[in-house]
Every structure is written in structure tokens, then in C-alpha cells.
């Protein structure tokens, strides 16, 4: 019996059923991955839609990154379900008043959009490989052409229109998908910690900064691995993007937190106790001080002083890594934090994450690594680099 569930220790008074925390670390990973999808997509849109040429080196890479993350997004949810074999029920027979019922459609729509956009982007490469290669790999590429071998100028300009159109649809699509994740939490009136109209934009902005950070890290690391020079203009552009969106993200979170405190509705004493106690390390120290203020100050300093060369690369890389950790902590503090404050308003619980079982730290780590593994494989078959020759 004991292995079936983990009872969370508590202080004060909590409802008896609350002692088993419903949403575990996997539900922390889910919005994190969705956020990376939206953020990476934003990065690619800056080039595809807004024509920012400095992001050309990462535009296609961003698209591929977004797809690799998106393919993993349903997994944490699936692993969390009591009946994973019924996972498609919300799509087959959706209950139309449920915010969750949207997920299957939104995710499916977005996966298809990303697949299409990636297909158009990598079509010239696919056609070339299909014509050159033989054997199994050749067959795979030939299937992937979907019978279209036309790479004439006319066809390319037609494809370009599709890429643009899909990217335009993708902006509200990606951001809608992530705003929706915020809505899932923000719309629940049962928990004061979640119940906020600002939840969707907060999730959205933190999503963008996490996606941009992921691309900064992956771009710099991939350049080092491929031994090609890093495009400083591109890095600088991403640093600006990260910095700008971070200011928005931080401000929104501050406003939300201030409103929660200022409103001071029933149960505020317990929230204050939580904020002053259990949140000192995960929120104030890690998320805010180390992973938000340090990168903002560092980026501000580098932008202000016009840092160049390796110092810029190191500084931006360091900031991006911190932001990646910070946004993960933000997801943790929202998802787990909300459940650690009892619905009674009279007690606090402590979620104790198991390390090795279905819903555990190990599973979470594997799910976080999975998109990177997918991406490592994907870039071999669909080189997204601007200097495509260097990849082969």
C-alpha cells in the first residue's frame, strides 16, 4: 500500500485528502517544456516574420528546437495520468467546458504546424538528399519529400510564402498554447496562489525568456562543437531579446505578487507564512536573486558598457543558463507552491519529490533531456545551420 502514494507532511490544518499532492514534478516539467516551445518559436519568428536578419543563424535551428521540445510536451502529462490508455478520450469525446479538453487540440494543431513549417524550411535539403542518397536513408528522404521534388525558384518563393504564413499563424498559436497553460492554473478559484488573471501573461513572458535562453545556450554550444565562429551580432541580438523580455517578465511577476499580498484575502496569513518560510530558498534565493536579478544586472552591464568578444559570449551564456534554471524554479514554485498552501487557508504541506519511480526526479530529468537528444539526432538529418556546408 505504501508505495501507491506518498503522504506529504503538513503543519496547521489541511484537508485530509490534501495530504497526497495531486500534481507532481511532472506537471512542473509540462509547462516548462511548453514554454521552451513558445520561446524558441518566438526566436525563429523574429527572423521569419519580423525580418530581423541578425537572427538568421538561429532561425532554422530555433524551429527545429521548438519541434523537438513540442514532441516531448505530451509525455509528462501522459506519464501522470492514472489511465494513460484513455489519454485520447478528451479529444474523442471532449467535455466542452473543460480547459484541459483544449490541450489535445491545441497541441495537435501546433505539432502539425511545426511539422509543416519545418518541412517547408528543410524541403530543399530533403529534396537534395532524396536525389543523392540511396538505401534506407534515401528512401526515408524520398518519403519525406511527399512526392514534391520541385525546388525551382518559383517553388521556393511559393514555399517562402507558406513559411511566412505558418510563422504568422504560429505566433498566436505558440503563445496561445502557453497562455492557455497559464489559464489552466490562473482560472482555478480553489487556490489563492494560482487564481490570478495575470497568470497567462506571466507564463507567456517566462516562456519567451526560457526559449531565448535555451537557444543562446544551444547556439553557443553547437558552434563550439562544430568548431565554427560564433556570430557575435546574433548573440548580441539574443542577449537584447532576453534582457528586454526579462524586464517584462519580472515586472509582471512583481505586480502579480504585489496584488496577491495587497488584496490580502482570506488565508493571506498562511500565504505570508509560506512566503517567509518554505519559499526563502526556492523563490527568493534561487528564482529571484540568483536566476533573475543576476542575469538582468549582468546583461544590463554588458549592454551598457558594450561588452564584446569572448567576454560577451561568456556573460550571455552564463545569464542564459541562470534564466533556464530560474524559469524551471518559477514553474516549480507555481505548480508545487500552489499545492503546498492548503485550501483550508490554515495549513501548509511539503511536497517530497521521490527520486526513482514513475513520477520522480529521475523521470523529470529524462524528460528534460529528451528534447536535447531528439535535437541532436534531428540536426544530423536536417542541418539547420546557416553555414550548411560546415555541417557535413
Amino acid at each position, binding site marked *: 500500500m505504501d508505495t501507491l502514494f506518498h503522504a506529504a507532511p503538513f503543519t496547521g490544518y489541511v484537508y*485530509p485528502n490534501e*495530504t497526497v499532492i495531486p500534481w507532481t514534478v511532472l506537471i512542473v516539467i509540462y509547462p516548462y517544456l511548453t514554454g521552451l516551445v513558445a520561446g524558441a518559436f518566438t526566436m525563429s519568428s523574429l527572423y521569419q516574420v519580423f525580418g530581423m536578419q541578425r537572427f538568421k543563424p538561429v532561425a532554422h535551428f530555433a524551429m527545429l528546437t521548438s519541434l523537438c521540445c513540442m514532441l516531448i510536451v505530451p509525455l509528462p502529462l501522459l506519464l*501522470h495520468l492514472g489511465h494513460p490508455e484513455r489519454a485520447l478520450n478528451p479529444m474523442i*469525446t471532449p467535455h466542452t*467546458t473543460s480547459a*484541459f479538453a*483544449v490541450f489535445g487540440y491545441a497541441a495537435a494543431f501546433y505539432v502539425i504546424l511545426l511539422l509543416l513549417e519545418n518541412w517547408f524550411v528543410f524541403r530543399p535539403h530533403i529534396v537534395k538528399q532524396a536525389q543523392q542518397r540511396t538505401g534506407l536513408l534515401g528512401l526515408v528522404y524520398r518519403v519525406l519529400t511527399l512526392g514534391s521534388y520541385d525546388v525551382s525558384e518559383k517553388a521556393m518563393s511559393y514555399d517562402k510564402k507558406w513559411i511566412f504564413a505558418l510563422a504568422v499563424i504560429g505566433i498566436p498559436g505558440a503563445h496561445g498554447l502557453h497562455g492557455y497553460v497559464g489559464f489552466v492554473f490562473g482560472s482555478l478559484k*480553489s487556490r489563492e496562489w494560482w487564481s490570478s488573471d495575470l497568470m497567462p501573461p506571466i507564463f507567456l513572458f517566462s516562456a519567451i525568456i526560457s526559449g531565448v535562453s535555451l537557444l543562446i545556450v544551444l547556439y553557443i554550444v553547437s558552434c563550439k562543437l562544430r568548431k565554427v565562429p560564433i556570430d557575435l551580432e546574433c548573440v548580441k541580438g539574443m542577449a537584447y531579446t532576453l534582457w528586454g523580455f526579462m524586464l517584462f517578465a519580472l515586472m509582471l511577476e512583481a505586480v502579480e505578487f504585489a496584488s496577491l499580498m495587497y488584496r490580502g484575502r482570506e488565508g493571506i496569513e498562511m500565504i505570508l507564512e509560506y512566503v517567509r518560510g518554505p519559499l526563502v530558498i526556492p523563490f527568493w534565493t534561487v528564482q529571484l536573486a540568483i536566476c533573475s536579478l543576476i542575469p538582468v544586472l549582468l546583461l544590463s552591464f554588458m549592454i551598457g558598457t558594450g561588452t564584446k568578444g569572448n567576454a560577451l559570449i561568456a556573460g550571455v551564456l552564463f545569464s542564459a543558463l541562470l534564466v533556464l534554471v530560474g524559469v524551471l524554479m518559477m514553474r516549480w514554485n507555481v505548480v508545487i507552491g500552489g499545492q503546498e498552501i492548503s485550501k483550508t487557508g490554515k495549513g501548509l504541506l511539503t511536497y517530497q519529490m521521490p527520486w526513482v519511480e514513475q513520477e520522480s526526479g529521475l523521470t523529470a530529468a529524462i524528460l528534460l533531456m529528451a528534447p536535447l537528444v531528439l535535437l541532436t539526432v534531428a540536426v544530423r538529418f536536417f542541418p539547420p545551420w546557416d553555414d550548411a556546408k560546415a555541417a557535413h
Partner: protein
Amino acid sequence: MEDKVEKFEEEGRRKFLRLFGGAIGGGGVAIAANALLPAAAAVEAPAKAAVPPIPNYDWSKHHWAFGVDATKCIGCLRCVEACKVENNVSKDPHHFRTWVERYVTLEGEEKARVDSQHDPVNIAAAGGEGKYRFANRYKDAKVDKAFFVPKLCNHCTHPACVQVCPTGATYKTADGAVVIDHTYCIGCQYCVQACPYGARFFNEEKGVTDKCTWCYHRITKGLNPACVEVCPVSARVFGDRNDKQSPISIFLRDNRVTVLKPETGNAPNVFYVGIDKEVS
């Protein structure tokens, strides 16, 4: 000719993309639009669904409700035990379809101290998990005020749990009970989060959520819920509001009642008498 083929290919591609995107987008938008409706408007539909095949029972002819007279409750926890047995609920102190809270205000203190049978002190006093009793933990203290409050699912008129269920596995019946179809629940636990009362829990053995059904298998046969049946002091009252002489109709007529957390807009159907401001 080539041009034509090319055009055909392009057309085909376009059509396919439009159709596919349109179908999926349309489905999503329809749900999103409906999800934005208030819970009140949203939960009307399921009651008109197919009538369950229960012999000699017409769910459109009943309107069940539950009453709790907290002034009568003695905290014996027989209701908790009966519920666990009747509904085969796991005996551990973390899964309850019904529970009892104890509110004790000591002399000189403003706030009540609250506990329930899942408190470690009470588990120790009961002699282990699976047994339920309140420890005599305030025997050396000067008690200003003390009372017990039985809790259960409120079978709300606008249940937040039903609103959020992605499959409709949990629904409100025509006779007022909120029940769960265990053969259709996917076990996402969104409903557990949405319930403001902590009435729902996850049944790990079955992989589905679980909660009080007012003993639906009993009330549809004309019996009382198990907890009402065993209560030695009639603190729990159950009946059909359509029957003006039923215990619940009399209870609601004779008392000024209140409900828990009315501000959530859930409109509970468990009515309380004799609870204090701190009870939520």
C-alpha cells in the same frame, strides 16, 4: 502540362493544409469558447444525458440534498468508518469520502485550533492507521468553545470539478448528485485541484479520482447514505427536497442554514447548522 501538374500539386497541398488546420483549429476553438462560459451555464447539459438503468428509479423525480447539524455531532467518527467500509475506501488516513473536523478555542486564544482524524496525534490515539478517533489532546487545557463539523462532497449546483473534467467522466445527475464514471476517468486530477473543499482524492489502486456519491447505490434504492444511517445523534440528515415531508425538507424549513465557501459560486447542496465563522 508540367505547369498544370505543378498547379495541381500546389492546389492539393493547399487544400490539404487548409482542411487539416481548419478541422483541428475549429475543434479547439469550439471547446475554448465553451470553456469560457461560466460554470453555471456550463453544467446544465449532462443531466439530460441517457438515464441510467436503475430498476424502479426515475432520477428526474428526485432532488437530493444533505444537512449537517454541527451542534449535535459528538465526533465519534462512526460515519467515517461506515463510509470507508460501505464504499471500499482505502483505510489509510489520506483518502476520505467523508471526515470530521474538530474546532477548539482555548481560553485566551482568538483562533480555533483545528484537527481531524488524519492528524498524527489522533492516529496515535486511535491505535494506528485504519482506526479513527479524536485524541483527548485538550484535557489539560481550559477550553472556551469546541465543536465538530462533519464534511463531505457538497454536490454543488455549479460544481467546479465537473466544469474542469476533460472527458465528462464526472457529471451532475438529474437528481442532484455529482458522480464519477470510473470507466471513463483518465486520472488527470484536474478535478481534485478544482474542488475548493478538498472533497476529492485520487484512488491509486483504480487510477481514477474518487469522492462521496451520497452512497448513490443506496439512495437510488430508497436507503440513506451509510454515514446518515450510522450517525447515533442524527447530526447528518438526508432526503429528497421534492418530498416536503422528507427529513431534509423539514431540516431546511426549520433552520437557518449556511453553506461552505459560498464566495466560490459553487452553490453547495450540503447545508450546515451550527458552524462558526472559521469553518470553511
